[in-house]
């Protein structure tokens, strides 16, 4: 049986997570530092809640929107004209032309960036312990449990920001043939990921106990 190259993968992953952590910290610091210098900073939240800060004279705020389309306003037909249909609801991005920055979008994006940094730091720490040959430690069990919690919190923050943005747009904006909507939506995949992490934490807890038994066997 071939030997798995675990430490090499763990080393690469630890470097990747640490690099990403520093990249996000540096990029966020640069954006924050630009505000006192008078440069415009915009917050962009993708349709699925992914946050991004942009800086520069043309930086604009973009918000996720969900909308229903007036019946018959968006007809679609297949290329061979054999079938047809109509788009009834969709999601998209609203680019604000005024330099407007809704507070909930900035606060939500900041919270999500913080959670992403937390997740990256915990992942890097777990990978470093695997790289150093000490994966089965009580602190790793706690790290993986915290990762599960962070996944749930990040999903709740993402859903809250998207819902707040959708509700803000629905209350403040109107468009022809469209009706902006806002419905809370929790991604089941994030919850399942958190449950998988909890199972992994239990595996690590058992591994830690076995490792302690092994080290205390004379």
């Amino acid at each position, binding site marked *: 049986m071939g030997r798995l190259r675990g430490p090499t993968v763990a080393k690469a992953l630890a470097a990747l997570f640490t690099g990403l952590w520093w990249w996000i910290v540096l990029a966020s610091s640069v954006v924050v530092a630009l505000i006192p210098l008078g440069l415009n900073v915009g917050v962009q939240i993708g349709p699925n809640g992914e946050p991004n800060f942009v800086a520069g004279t043309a930086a604009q705020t973009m918000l996720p929107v969900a909308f229903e389309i007036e019946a018959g306003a968006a007809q679609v037909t297949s290329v061979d004209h054999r079938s047809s249909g109509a788009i009834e609801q969709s999601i998209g991005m609203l680019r604000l032309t005024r330099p407007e920055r809704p507070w909930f979008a900035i606060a939500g994006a900041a919270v999500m960036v913080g959670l992403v940094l937390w997740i990256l730091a915990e992942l890097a720490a777990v990978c470093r312990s695997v790289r150093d040959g000490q994966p089965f430690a009580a602190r790793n069990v706690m790290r993986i449990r915290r990762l599960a919690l962070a996944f749930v919190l990040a999903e709740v923050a993402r859903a809250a920001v998207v819902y707040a943005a959708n509700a803000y747009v629905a209350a403040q904006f109107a468009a022809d043939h469209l009706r902006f909507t806002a419905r809370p939506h929790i991604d089941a995949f994030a919850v399942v990921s958190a449950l998988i992490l909890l199972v992994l934490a239990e595996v690590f807890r058992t591994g830690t106990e076995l490792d*302690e*038994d092994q080290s*205390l*066997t*004379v």
Partner: protein
Amino acid sequence: MPIRVKLDHVMLDRRMSLTDLASRVGLTLANLSILKTNKARAIRFSTLEALCRELKCQPGDLLAWTADEDASGRS
């Protein structure tokens, strides 16, 4: 743990130091210390055999069972 290692008593009887016993049975001083201070979770038969050989005793001379800590300890 309800199983207690009486290594210190037997060593005292034989007037043997921990360092001397460690070198005779081929264990590190740290591992023998874990055994002597009752911190060990398990003992290999090979270790028990080496200890009995060097201390000229039976396994029962090295181990004792006490019921008082049964509920709190991990067996």
